[in-house]
């Protein structure tokens, strides 16, 4: 089998068996149990929650991230094996949502790790979550869910942003701004 067909097969397989990392990063985790259980049952799609990042394929960042959590999220994300996908869950991962002026939550998740699908809403309904899964399947099928490749490609940019956020220091942000201008 040539490489093209092989990767196509890989995509079909990984689409039908996405394992989710069991990491509740924010309050959005409250709508995950209904999705996992009898009402919505995501195991119909072959998805279920895994205890450790090594076994997981998809990372649902459920809600806002405090900087302290972001450190763990990055660690977990890096421990996951390629190909891996990220779903940004709720308004908080898009622009901060309710916590737009909170000193401790990052506002835009895509600055720190690549995000494949966003779900809007606070909090998103289980139907919206299921819909995002279908969207992700579709993207995997078409080969558009390439967040993990982006992470390898722009690794230094992601790392720089992460470092800045972890430091909480205004001067670091300014330094980078000046570097960019030069």
């Amino acid at each position, binding site marked *: 089998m040539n490489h093209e067909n092989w990767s196509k097969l890989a995509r079909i397989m990984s689409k039908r068996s996405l394992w989710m990392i069991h990491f509740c990063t924010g309050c959005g985790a409250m709508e995950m149990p209904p999705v996992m259980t009898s009402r919505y049952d995501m195991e119909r799609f072959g998805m279920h929650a895994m205890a450790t990042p090594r076994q997981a394929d998809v990372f649902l960042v459920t809600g806002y991230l405090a900087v302290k959590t972001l450190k763990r999220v990055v660690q977990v994300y890096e421990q996951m094996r390629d190909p891996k996908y990220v779903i940004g869950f709720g308004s908080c991962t898009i622009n*901060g949502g309710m916590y737009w002026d909170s000193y401790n939550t990052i506002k835009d998740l895509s*600055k720190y790790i690549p995000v494949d699908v966003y779900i809007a809403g606070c909090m998103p309904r289980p139907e919206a979550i299921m819909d995002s899964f279908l969207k992700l399947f579709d993207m995997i099928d078409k080969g558009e869910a390439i967040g993990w490749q982006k992470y390898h490609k722009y690794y230094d940019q*992601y790392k720089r942003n992460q470092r800045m956020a972890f430091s909480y220091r*205004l001067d670091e*942000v300014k330094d*980078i701004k000046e570097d960019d201008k030069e």
Partner: protein
Amino acid sequence: MMAKELFPEAQEIRKGRIRIETQKDKVGEIIKKLKDNGYEHFVMLSCVDWIKEGKFELVYQMWSYQYKEHVMISIKINRDGESMLSMRHLFPQIETYEREIHEMFGVNFIGNPNLKEFILEGWPHMPPMRKDFDTEKFVKDFYYKIPEVKEE
């Protein structure tokens, strides 16, 4: 004995809510006395930042299951670097409250060995719950300034 009988200076601000304003050296004594007189549940220790007066108000709050009464013991300390004696020997959970107030307001509690980082991690600025810390400005200067990842 109820709080009003124990301390004549106590004022009833609402039904079942007693407020005692006192000095910081008397707090330990009052809490001890209340604890021995049926006020056995320590509810919480709060800190209020009265920036115009330049004071922090520490509010020790206790509840009596017996009298169904909530007592707030309030003291004021100077905002700039005045420390307070730790009350952790009276109720174990005070230690955690003091740890949080130390982190969020910068109040130092003498005699509490466990004042390490609690909620934040590596926070280099002034304690964030102080009134003069402007969270909106910080967010605009920091999170919004972090550049987006540029894709070539």
